[in-house]
């Protein structure tokens, strides 16, 4: 066992990288849930994004186009969910599960042609001046552009939900869709757009796994990241800034357990690999109990079908 090989600075820097896929997927789901829809298909949309992004990047040689393809792929899959849930009034829990099962099947079928191929490399962008700050520079300001995009999207979603008129409408639709409908808001249209955004974000998160983290296509590449993203939304009490905290926490745990594995700590590898999932459960328990229960912060119409009886 050799713990001296673990550098705190490198650990924190890789934490930020490791948290990015979960952050992106969770941010999309947060917007979806604030509009009153529970999409349990995050895992399916993520893995679809992972393969469409990978395929696009390999075909074009450009990681940026790959991410675009991933966003389109994730959004395309979410259209299926939206049509079923919004217009055909299907059960959201069951439809979300179906989306995950379908997405996993679709991705592994498409992915067969891409086994063993490496993704085109993506360089880091060191932000001038800021990246030269000792300690903080390497941790925060020497990453690829998707990491910055993730953080920028958090700020953007925060601004949208709390400072823009459309965000206020979206929240109204999520809190009470009947009242919002009576006020003349287009409940289904808004929810459709939110679901599309959620799908695109999940797709980006998936592509970050296949293009940057791993970086190649492996079957079942998401390994529950989509479900962890769902848990983080609850952890964050549906607030974007706390989402960032949650994603870093989980990024930290997965990086730490990988480092401990590499340092040959006398704990079985399997037990270390369980850690992120166990911590997710622990955090869910902590956040759900005690004062300020998470359930109270949930959008009022979350998971309920909307049918305008006119």
């Amino acid at each position: 066992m050799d713990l001296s090989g673990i550098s705190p600075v490198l650990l924190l820097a890789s934490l930020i990288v490791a948290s990015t896929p979960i952050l992106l997927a969770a941010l999309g789901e947060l917007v979806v849930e604030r509009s009153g829809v529970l999409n349990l298909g995050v895992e399916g949309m993520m893995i679809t994004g992972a393969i469409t992004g990978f395929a696009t990047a390999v075909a074009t040689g450009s990681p940026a186009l790959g991410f675009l393809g991933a966003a389109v792929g994730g959004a395309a899959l979410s259209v299926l969910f939206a049509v079923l849930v919004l217009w055909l009034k299907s059960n959201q829990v069951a439809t979300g599960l179906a989306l995950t099962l379908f997405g996993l099947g679709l991705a592994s079928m498409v992915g067969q042609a891409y086994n063993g191929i490496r993704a085109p490399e993506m360089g880091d962008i060191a932000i001038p001046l800021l990246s030269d700050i000792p300690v903080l520079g390497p941790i925060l300001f020497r990453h690829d552009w998707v990491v910055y995009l993730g953080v920028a999207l958090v700020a953007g979603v925060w601004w949208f939900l709390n400072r823009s008129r459309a965000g206020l409408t979206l929240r109204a639709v999520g809190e009470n869709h009947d009242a919002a409908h009576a006020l003349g808001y287009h409940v289904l249209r808004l929810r459709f757009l939110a679901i599309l955004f959620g799908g695109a974000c999940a797709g980006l998160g998936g592509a970050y796994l296949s293009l940057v983290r791993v970086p190649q296509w492996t079957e079942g590449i998401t390994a529950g990241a989509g479900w962890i993203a769902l848990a983080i939304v609850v952890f964050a009490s549906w607030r974007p800034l706390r989402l960032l905290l949650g994603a870093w926490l989980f990024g930290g745990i997965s990086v730490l357990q990988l480092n401990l594995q590499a340092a040959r700590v006398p704990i079985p590898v399997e037990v270390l690999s369980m850690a992120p999932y166990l911590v997710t459960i622990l955090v869910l328990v902590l956040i759900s109990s005690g004062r300020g229960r998470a359930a109270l912060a949930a959008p009022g119409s979350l998971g309920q079908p909307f049918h305008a009886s006119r």
Partner: protein
Amino acid sequence: MIYLEKRPTPSRAWALATPLLAVLATMIVGGLLFAAMGKDPVLAIRTIFWDPLFGEFASYTRPQLLIKAGPLILIAIGLSFGFRAGIWNIGAEGQYILGALTGAAVGLAFYPSESRLIFPLMVLAGALGGMAWALIPGLLKVRFGTNEILVSLMLVYVATNLLAYAALGPLQNPEGMGFPGSRNLSQWSASANPELFTGTGIHWGVIAAGLSVLVAYVLLARHAFGFAVRLAGQSPRAAAFAGVSPSRLVLTCMAISGGLAGLAGVFEVTGPAGQISIDFNVGYGFTAIIVAFLGRLHPVGILLAGLLMALTYIGGEMAQLQLSLPAAAIQLFQGMLLFFLLAMDVLTQFRVRVRSGRAQAPQAVVAQPKPAQGTH
């Protein structure tokens, strides 16, 4: 303009028709998909749905049908109670693994004894193991209000890691020359779960699945517990007034589903699978969710849906061998089936009405039908 009108009560005719329509639609779209992949669609559909039953190798594949359907039905019956009551245990895959692990561990503790008590003891341990694993999200939900969907699912990943740990560590075959995996339980007479009637594929797990269908039918139709489950699903408030304790309902539903999933696991590991190995689980716990919905959460429906889904597994394997169709295509096929079913469910809950123009809209309010009377 087309619009939907909520039915006063769900249509029974459509509830029966939609699963059949969904299967049909899946065949058509699946056929188109196979055609797009350059395979003969009719041949592919026939290989999946017809050949396992009546084809050239049917004498080999027919027993496989019950072997695959057994665990699917057993798990889906357990899940159906919770799904009816709005309790979403989607971690049956983990409970299935835990059932196999605890069952195998208890059995191997007595190796090489030849006592006849070992197999029943293993079955009991498997059921309890699966039950305990399912009670974790149940208790957390009751005590702390955590979301059972997320917790039960997280525990699947914990269970797969436990499985890998057990197969390489404590349960590894000491005479296995370092290969991962436990002793072969189906070849040790005290723990074996053999085919009971030659050529049928029936082992104890299949019998348990059949019994579970019967018991579930009686429970739902005749017992106070079934009433509580149905009431809680249709109207939680009414259930509260009727004296149904939500906490007790959560724990009971989780215990039933976990116990049955655990049973499925232990029957599998002692029979068809034979040993604890890293890739012991093959996704029955997730496919069972599709089975439960396709069967309309009704015991008889689940029986039929389980058989159908088993057919797609076997047919899928045959298509893989004969037409080199990718294995994932069947997974896609199963997901598609669930999609079509959920989409067509709209016909059960709503009437599709066509209205010529907006001017007539107020009339539609007047023309709404009175709630149906005397249908029950």
